[in-house]
């Protein structure tokens, strides 16, 4: 099990939040447009077969363009990929072991498992990237509005927003707690079982009390069980175009082997050398 680091998690949390509060042609789209595009992207990727690699590659256009248009530096994205990749790669790496039947890839012949491996790597990169881009452009507030617009009950969305709001606060608290513990535990980083109860239990009780005070603060300002939010922005023509353009592109990639077509064009241009 990997060591979890509260301060680094907090930093990552702040980074995404900060990114999502910018302005760009992507950030300014309606959250529903961004959410729908992401959802379609995920489904399209998942619908590709176990051994497809080249067919999926044209989908890279989406993250590449979005990164550029939204002016998001890929550094944070790579950090994210690096943190989730090992487990999936471990599973993916077993494919060549179990799938030894050879396949032909161009002029080469390799174990079929390598295609599965490549396919998993590509899918992993694309899905993690798309999820990251959604939050980095729509923001948590945007995702919440998208969920509401998609018909998810208000209670669930409010709980989600409140979780997001207090995650930062409690992470900061855990950072201080673990630091205080580290300073007095002689360099050992893990918490011993004997202090685990008081430590996490104490945090729990403080959180419980905080929930009570937050509720008081809400009811003092007229909260009566109905959580009222402001009017959502309008779903405009640019939002529709944005959605249609990407959904159309995804559909083409799914139905037509663009890579193969590109290859043939290249072959024709190169005068049939391939």
């Amino acid at each position, binding site marked *: 099990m990997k060591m979890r680091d509260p301060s680094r998690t907090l930093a990552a949390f702040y980074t995404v939040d900060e990114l999502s509060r910018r302005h760009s042609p992507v950030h300014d789209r309606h959250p529903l447009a961004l959410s729908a595009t992401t959802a379609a992207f995920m489904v399209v990727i998942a619908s590709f077969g*176990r051994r497809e690699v*080249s067919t999926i590659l044209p989908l890279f256009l989406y993250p*590449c363009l979005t990164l550029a248009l939204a002016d998001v530096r890929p550094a944070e994205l790579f950090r994210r990929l690096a943190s989730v990749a090992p487990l999936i790669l471990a599973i993916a790496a077993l494919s060549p072991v179990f799938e030894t039947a050879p396949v032909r890839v161009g002029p080469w012949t390799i174990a079929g498992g390598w295609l599965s491996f490549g396919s998993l790597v590509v899918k992993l990169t694309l*899905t993690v990237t798309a999820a990251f881009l959604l939050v980095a452009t729509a923001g948590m507030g945007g995702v919440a509005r998208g969920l509401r617009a998609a018909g998810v009950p208000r209670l669930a969305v409010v*709980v989600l927003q409140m*979780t997001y709001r207090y995650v930062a606060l409690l992470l900061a608290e855990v950072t201080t707690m673990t630091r205080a513990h580290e300073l007095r535990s002689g360099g050992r980083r893990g918490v011993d079982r004997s202090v685990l109860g008081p430590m*996490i239990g104490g945090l729990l009780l403080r959180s419980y009390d905080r*929930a009570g005070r937050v509720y008081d603060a809400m009811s003092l300002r007229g909260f009566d069980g109905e959580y009222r939010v402001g009017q959502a922005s309008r779903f405009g023509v640019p939002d529709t175009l944005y959605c249609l353009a990407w959904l159309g592109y995804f559909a083409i990639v799914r139905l037509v082997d663009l890579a193969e077509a590109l*290859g043939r064009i290249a072959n024709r241009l190169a005068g049939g050398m391939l």
Partner: protein
Amino acid sequence: MHMADALVSPGVGGALWAATLGLGAYSIRKVTAEVDDKKITLMGVMAAFVFAAQMVNFTIPGTGSSGHLGGGLLLAALLGPYAGFLAMGSVLAIQALCFADGGLLAYGCNVFNLGFFTCFLAYPLIYQPIAGDGSSKTKSFIAAMVAAVVGLQAGAFGVVIETMLSGKTELPFGAFVALMQPIHLAIGVVEGFVTAAVLAYVRSASPELLAPGATVAVSSARPKALLGLILATLVVGIGLSWFASTDPDGLEWSMEKVSGMAELEVEGGAHETAAGIQAVTAFLPDYGFKSAETEEAEPSWPAIDAGTSLSGVVGGVLALGLSALAGLAAFGLRRKPRPAGTGKA
């Protein structure tokens, strides 16, 4: 433990999303019926608590490695199964969205594996009957331990089943189970320890939080509702698989559909359009449904599989390069006029 999108097929992902939405809606009905507005803030803050508490690493005695809290069982014990399930869903959503811990399409799978089994199986069917009113420390400890282990074993098995059904990897079922279950036995023991320790502390410091009133039991696990849920899951799963799965039959079916329509278009259209379309489609030979060929030819060892053609390889690389170029071009265009705005209106 968290499933990534790369391992999930639309059929499996969609089915478990549907199941999650159904369970979520049911839980919301239950929670709202409790007429306690306080629950909303409590669920939100407690979900944030679980997320933060997961960051506390502690040493596993005698191994030198470290573990951390999962939290599903703890949430169920504090908030009751319904509110606990919703809070766990919130934790998993934050993890998936903000930290790429678990996928978006796989969100339903993760809620099921980590939320459903802990809140609706381990808590009411194992923890509560063993722990009783919580007066016995030993009983409470055993209850937390057994419930955590069973919950995680069920969750791990869920991961195996979902991955197998998705068919994104060719891992043999037996090997996968042999890999997942023992690992999650260890994780379950850890979870049991943490949950038991935290609950024991809360019980001694602030017993009213765990009073019977605070936790509403699942009344005798409604078989009808559960059966309905399972049926709905199956229907959605099978339906979606049929449309979108990698299963050759399904794909052939959809290919026929699509290519049939395309032919129709060409024949029915005006001559110019038809010529235009043909010119375009000439570049797109056979609609490139090579995955179908791959799948069909695959098991026939030692015959060599068709795999990917050279133009596919070249085209794939080209597609990557073009995507990167498009990104760079867009980036360059955006660079020039640089508005200094920061906050989002």
